[in-house]
Structures are given as C-alpha cells and as structure tokens.
C-alpha cells in the first residue's frame, strides 16, 4: 500500500463530521438532538484546530463553544421535556430566509478561504530551514531538561506523512497578552522595542469589560428586596 498522509486523512474526517452534523442541526426537529449535533460539529472543529497544531485554540473551542452549548442543551431539555415544543417544524418562509442568509455568508467565506495566498510552504521543511526560521521567530530555542518536545511553528508532516511533534502555542500567546511579543523580538527596530507592548491594552480593556458584565449580571440576578412599609 502507498503512504497514507494521516494529516490529510484526519482533516477530511473531521471536516466531514463537522459539515455533516452542521447539516443535521438544520434538518433535525428536536431541540435536544439539535444541541447534541451542534456539540459534535463544534467538537470536530476543535479536532481540526488540534490537527493544525493550535492546541490552545482547540482547547478554547472545547471549553467555550462546546461547553457553552451545555446551557443551550439545558434550556432545550427544560423546554421540551414535556409540552408542545418537543418537535419544531420549520416553515417554508423560514427556509427561504435562512437559505438567503446562509448563502450570503457562504458567498463571502468561500472566496475568502480559497484566495488565501499560501497556508504553508507546500513542501516538507528541512532541518536547516527550520533552524533558520527559529532564529527569527524565537518560538523554539532550547530543550529544557529531559527532552520536552519543542518544535515550533506549523506542524509539517514529513514525507512519510507522520506528523511532527506538537508545537508550542500557549506560552508565546500568553507572553503576548502580558506585553512581550516574543515572536517579534527580532523584527522590531531597536528604537521601537520599549513601546512594543503586545496585546496588553486590549487584554486589560476586555478584562474590565468582562468584570462590568459580571457585576451587572450579579446585580440583575439578585433578589429584589422591597422597601419596608412605613
């Protein structure tokens, strides 16, 4: 048998699962089953992220999107355990509006996806090339202690189709949020480097925003006490 490129195989597998269950979400009439199909579709997307070497984004996908669907599922269960909402039928008009919207989105996304200039170098990266990249990107430097895998950048399947070791993605992201763009240290001219604060400001803005939302939710959800009658 010829060589199987496992990366490609798993990409098609996950992509198929994601698309198939996305269609199932639309077709199904039971809310709880829809939620389950949505979970599978989102989980397959997380698998695609892991396949692309974006561990952190994949885990985020599992935590936020798949975990967030939990609430949807609970509402589905609470609404449809008994009662008239067990089966939801989509009317013809709804189908047309939904098709129109989805078609517009697809028309935007498909050209965008197909016109990305180059996803990767297209050929297996040799060790020498990798070393050269490393000096610039600083994602990979030393191997600490007992062989912690430290491959960097995109995971390139070698000529046999065996994927490389897992890349490190979380630490540079975290350092970037804390204000140190470790991936860009070599690029910026000397004079600008002190002002290169990474994503610290957006990070702080989002943090404060989330705090406000949290306090607001707590305020809205607290039990209202009536003023004592005099």
């Amino acid at each position: 048998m010829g060589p199987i490129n496992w990366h490609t195989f798993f990409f098609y597998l996950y992509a198929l699962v994601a698309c198939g269950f996305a269609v199932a979400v639309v077709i199904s009439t039971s809310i709880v089953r829809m939620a389950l199909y949505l979970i599978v579709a989102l989980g397959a997307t997380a698998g695609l992220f892991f396949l692309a070497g974006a561990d952190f984004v994949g885990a985020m996908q599992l935590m936020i999107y798949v975990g967030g669907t939990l609430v949807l599922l609970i509402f589905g269960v609470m609404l449809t355990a008994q009662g008239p909402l067990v089966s939801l039928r989509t009317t013809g008009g709804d189908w047309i509006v939904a098709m129109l919207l989805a078609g517009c989105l697809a028309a935007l996304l498909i050209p965008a996806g197909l016109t990305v200039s180059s996803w990767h170098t297209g050929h297996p990266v040799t060790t020498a090339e990798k070393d050269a990249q490393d000096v610039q990107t600083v994602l990979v430097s030393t191997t600490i202690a007992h062989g912690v895998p430290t491959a960097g950048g995109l995971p390139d399947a070698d000529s046999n189709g065996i994927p490389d070791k897992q890349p490190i993605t979380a630490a540079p992201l975290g350092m970037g949020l804390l204000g140190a763009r470790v991936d860009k240290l070599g690029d910026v001219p000397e004079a600008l480097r002190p002002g290169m604060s990474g994503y610290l400001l957006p990070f702080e803005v989002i943090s404060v925003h989330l705090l406000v939302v949290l306090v607001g939710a707590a305020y809205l959800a607290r039990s209202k006490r009536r003023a004592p009658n005099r």
Partner: protein
Amino acid sequence: MAEALANYLWPWLAYLSVGLLQCVLLLLVPFVGAMFFVWVERKVSARIQDRLGPTRCGGKFGWLQLLADGLKLITKEDLRPGDADAVLFRIAPYISFCASFAALLALPFSNGWVAQNLDVGVFFILAVLGLEVFGVILAGYASASKWSLFGAMREAAQVVSYEVPLGMCVVVPVLITGSMNLVTIGQMQAGFFTQWLVFHDPFTFITFWVYFTCATASVNRAPFDLAEAESELVAGFHTEYSGFRWLAFFMAEYGSMFAVSGLAAILFFGGWNGPIPITSMLGLTPENGPVLAWIGNLLGLFNFIFKCVLGVTFMVWVRWTLPRLRIDQVMQVCLKYCTPIAAVMFLGATCWTYLLPGGVGLRAMPYAQRYVTSAPADAAAELDRIATTRVARGGE
C-alpha cells in the same frame, strides 16, 4: 516512537499502530481502574461500617469479586423504557465515557510518558472533563423518567457552578511554574518532597484542599452526588440503565476520578517524583542512557499511580464518612466558600511569588527565559537583570 518504528514497518502502519497502542494502554485505566476501585470501594466502605465486605469470591479478601461484578453486568439484559428517545438513550453513556477517556490523553504517567504532550495540558483536561456532564444530561432527558430528569438538572447546575472555583485553583500551580504543560510542571517539582507545589507556600497548601473539594463535586461523588441521590431520586440520571451501558457510566465516573486525582498529583504532589529523589540518586536519568532512564520512568509510573490510587481512596473514604448535602448546601459550598477562598488563595499566591524578596517564587523565570534566549542579547540581559536584582534585594 512512530519515527523509530517507521524503520521496520510501513510508515502509515507504524503511525497507526503507535496510536492504537497508546489508546489501548489508556483504555486499561478506566477498565482495570474501575474494576479495582469498585473492589476498593466495597472493602473500604465495609471497614468504615464495621463490616467485612466481599470475602469469599477468589479466596482471600474477595479479590475476584471485581471479575464477578463485571461478568454480572455484561450479561445483564439491556433494557430501554418505551418512551425513551432511543438514539440519545443509547449513546449517552458513551459520551460520558469518551469525555473521561479523552482527559487521560493529556495526562503524563511518568516523565514524558504521555499520549499527547499538549502545551496546554491542564486546560485541555479541564475542558474535556467538563464535557462529561453532556452524557448525564442526555441520559436524564432521554430516559423519559422524572427521576432521571431531576438528577440530570441537578448535575448540570452543580457542574456549571463548580467549574469556576476548580479553574481558579488550577491556575495557582500554573502561575508558579509558568507553564500549562503538565510534563513541565512535573519536571519543575523534581527533587525532595519540599519541592512539591503543595509545600511551596501556605496558599498552595490551602488551594489543594479547595481543589480536591471542587474536584470531588465535579466528578459527582458523595457528599456531592445529588445527581444520583438514592434516598430521593431512586438512582438519579441512571435510574433506567442496566447492563453494559450502566457499566459505561460507572467506568466514566471512576475514570474521571482517576483523572482529577492524577491532575492533583501532578499539580500539587510532584507527579511522578517520589518524596525522595531515589531515581536521580541511583543515576536512573536520561544522561546515563535510555535503559536506565526507562527504569527510572517505570519507578515514576509506580509513584504516579500510587498517588492517584491514594487520591481515589481518599474520595472513597470521604464518601462513606460524610452525609450527602442538600442542593442549596451544595451551591452554598461552591459560591460562598470555595470560590472566595480560591480567589483569595490566587491573590495570595501571586503576591507570594512576585512580591516576596529572595527569589522565592522565581521558578517560572527559566521558562520565560527560554523564549528570549535567541532573541537580541539585550532582551535576555534585561530578564537576567530582573532576576538578579530580585535575588539581590532578598539578600539585603
């Protein structure tokens, strides 16, 4: 490993067989683990209640009881209520099982012995363990039974609440080591047991207890097992299940108990590092060749599994000692006690690490330095300067 095997086999086969081997080894944990822990649970609970527990099956200590239990469950009839949602009812146990199994993928069993060495291992395990609740909710809904539905709704409320303090507790060791990679976190605790993060400072010590409370609640064990409260809900979400599907729920429960105990062992108790660094004293390290390193890793594996079993036994002990809480008490423990304590411990650990002089908490510094070593020299020098001034300030 796949690369090494590719010299002897077709590459695609090598890759496939290595993947399958890892999966089979990991599947042993919920399978054998569940059998062993059920036996432990029966013996420990019996002793706590001044009974003997299983004694006859297999001669001494009833050790064959676990096999008898397993056989009984496999041969039971697979029942399904008439009103049940057939598809969801069938797959719900396997969703729980898959979630608990997937958590083991990122759990290192010894130095570098991990199926997937994820850079975000801690985060991945938390995310995946949170998915176990899907199986419970679907089971509760699909059973078409009020007991099951009540159990599932309780479980949902409980798990969503307890994820908050659990996440906060896990952040503390991550903060101190500067890494979310479980292998790195374990390696940073090498040495004597004083290096274990639970003894790093008073805050981490308390954090461990909060973590263990929340972990017990998140894997749905007594005193937080409201989802299957026998006295009120028959058997909660698995009322309508029997045979192998019921067994799948139980293997999921014991698998995730093992996973959270393993996470506790790595985050707080040094993972595969014993209390005394015997392996490095005997020279069983990678510097002395792969064979000695392998023996050292094997000892580490025993260490790790011992710690996990200890954690699970502790959960069993707690289950048979404390009475079950009410649902409002469960929420109170989470929101009024665990969350604030975890938040204060997080602040305290931050202050301890970064404000105390003497470089007490500088364990994360080498990790940060890795990222700037091949950067322009002044950036590395800057980090060096920060480290040395902090150490110098402590010396004054």
